């Protein structure tokens, strides 16, 4: 594999952005904020804890879906960007390299220290996350899996690689789904995420 993951992380993690005169950060095909991780995980945790248990599964689905939509559009913005072309582009030999490169940026942007450990093109991807902010919600004991963002973005990146050409108006972002099988918040050593074709569409 031609991808130099550490080099990509080193270069892309140095990106510093700031709102313009109107307080807007625009880049990678989207508008961006840089808010605290405790806000994002706090909202998800409070929301789910406050809900009627009958609504929990649907709400978890929507939290994953938010990340999946985000991952599809932002992911495309990343791989179409000048930074990508300059830093990652020369390392790319095939679609699988694009995916590995995308997860290096996933790490550089502090979404999670995550990498692909198994990849069957178009069929299955296993991602391990060794350190991720969504696990911070657990302070004592073990919880249920709570890495909704990693699930959504992993499925979205796989869709960008194997669901055909990017189409912002399509449902392609939802071509694959991701289940979390292990989690630091659950007491495991790392988080594990398995992406497979979405059989519900």
């Amino acid at each position, binding site marked *: 594999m031609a991808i130099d993951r550490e080099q990509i992380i080193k270069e892309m993690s140095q990106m510093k952005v700031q709102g313009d005169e109107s*307080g807007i950060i625009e880049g990678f095909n989207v508008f*961006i*904020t*840089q808010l*605290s*991780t405790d806000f994002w995980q*706090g*909202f998800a945790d409070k929301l789910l804890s406050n809900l009627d248990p009958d609504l929990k599964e649907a*709400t978890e689905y929507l939290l994953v879906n938010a990340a999946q939509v985000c991952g599809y559009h932002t992911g495309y913005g990343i791989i179409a960007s000048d930074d990508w072309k300059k830093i990652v582009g020369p390392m790319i030999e095939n679609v699988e390299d694009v995916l590995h490169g995308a997860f290096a940026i996933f790490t550089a942007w502090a979404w999670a*220290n995550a990498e692909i450990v198994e990849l069957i093109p178009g069929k299955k991807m296993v991602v391990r996350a060794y350190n991720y902010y969504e696990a911070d919600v657990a302070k004592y004991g073990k919880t249920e899996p709570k890495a909704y963002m990693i699930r959504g973005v992993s499925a979205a990146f796989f869709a960008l690689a194997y669901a055909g050409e990017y189409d912002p108006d399509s449902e392609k972002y939802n071509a694959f789904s991701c289940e979390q099988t292990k989690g630091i918040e659950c007491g495991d050593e790392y988080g594990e995420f398995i992406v497979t074709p979405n059989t519900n569409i």
Partner: protein
Amino acid sequence: MAESKNKTLLLENIFNDKTRRKYINGVQTVFHCHHFISLYTQLAIDIDETQILKETAEESFYNTLTKYFSENNIVDFNDKVNLACDYYKAVGMGEITVENITLYSGVVKSTSAHIDKGWMAKWGKYDKPVNYIGCGYISAMFAVALNKPFNSYETIEQKSIVKGDEYTLFKIVRK
């Protein structure tokens, strides 16, 4: 009030190579896009839990602003308000201008907001305000600037860009 800018907002961005986490002024942060924030907000609206969104934002920003002012020895009221407005802008939330603050209320105007801009890019105009995170931020800003505890202020949007108004007008009232 808040007419002169005596203090410049300091932003120390650090990426921890070992943990692979990112910090601004010692607060762990993460990039997210307008799709993410719009869908989280829509979820809160759909299940009638916008107050959780607002209060979680307030708690988070209350801690962020308190930490910054404490570590940088910011004690002047005007400096706190100005720096809080600058921070809002720096992290990509948009632009806010404080029109007035009284002992029990206040008015803040915004001509640009990440959530409104992103929401409209995604779905177009909406019949209700959507900037609950901004409301939480402003409640936190008032509480910290006026040395009040968390959850001392309620902020609502009286005008809203996403509804078609020229600007968003936040009304703040002491609880």
